[in-house]
C-alpha cells in the first residue's frame, strides 16, 4: 500500500523534507511501523503529534492504502 507522509514545522526541519511517499508491503501496518521506515535511525519523538487523514490519532493506528499521515510538534496557534 502507498502512504503519503507529511512533516510540519520543526519536524520538517528535523527530517529535512516536507513529504514522503512510502510503499509498504502488508495490510496491518501501524503508524509506529511507518515511522521506523521513514526514520530508521531515530525513534518517534515523545512529544510528536500524529494525524491520519487530518484527524488526531496515536502510533498504534493501523493504516490503509491511500492514507495521509502527518507528524508535527505541539500546536501554537491563536
Amino acid at each position, binding site marked *: 500500500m502507498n502512504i503519503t507522509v507529511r512533516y510540519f514545522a520543526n519536524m520538517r526541519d528535523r527530517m529535512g523534507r516536507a513529504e514522503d511517499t512510502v510503499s509498504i508491503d502488508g495490510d496491518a501496518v501501524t503508524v509506529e511501523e511507518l515511522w521506523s521506515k521513514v526514520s530508521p535511525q531515530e525513534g518517534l519523538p515523545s512529544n510528536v503529534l500524529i494525524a491520519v487523514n*487530518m484527524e488526531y490519532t496515536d502510533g498504534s493506528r493501523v493504516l490503509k492504502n491511500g492514507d495521509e499521515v502527518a507528524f508535527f510538534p505541539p*500546536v*501554537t496557534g*491563536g
Partner: protein
Amino acid sequence: MKVIVQEGLFDPYQETRDYEEKCLPVGKHGAVVTFVGTMRDFNDGHNVSSMFLEHYPGMTERHIEEVCEEAAQKWDVIDALVLHRHGEISISEPIVLVAVWSAHRAHAFDACRYIINYLKERAPFWKCESTQQGKRWVEHNTEDPGVNAKGLKQSA
C-alpha cells in the same frame, strides 16, 4: 458559522461589523463578544521582530469548525466567525479573530473563550519567531490563567 484561514491582513473590527450586517438576523442577539489575538514584540524573554505562522491546510479549518460546533452545542450561540492568519505576520498585526453572537452575554463570553482556547489547543498552527538570536519555533502557548479551556468544559 464561518471559519476562514487566510494569509492576508484583515481588520477584525470591520470584519465583525460586515459579518453581522450580512449574516445576523436583525434584533435577535443581545451580545457580541470578540477576541482579537495580536502579535507581541516579545515572547519568553526575547524580543521578537516578526513571525511566520505555518498551518496544515484542510486540517486546520476542519478542527476550528469542530471547536465552533462544540461551542454551539454547549451554549446558546446564534452565530460565530473565526478568522485566522497564516504566513508572515508583523508586530501589532491581528493574528486571530473570534466573534460570537448570542442573545445574552454569559453565553457569548463562555463560547468565545471556549473557541479561542480549544483552537489554540487543537488547530494545527505553528509559530516561528524571528529574534535577535535567529529564528525559533515556539514550543508552547501561553495559558489562559482565568478559566482554562477544560475548566469551561466542566462548567458547561
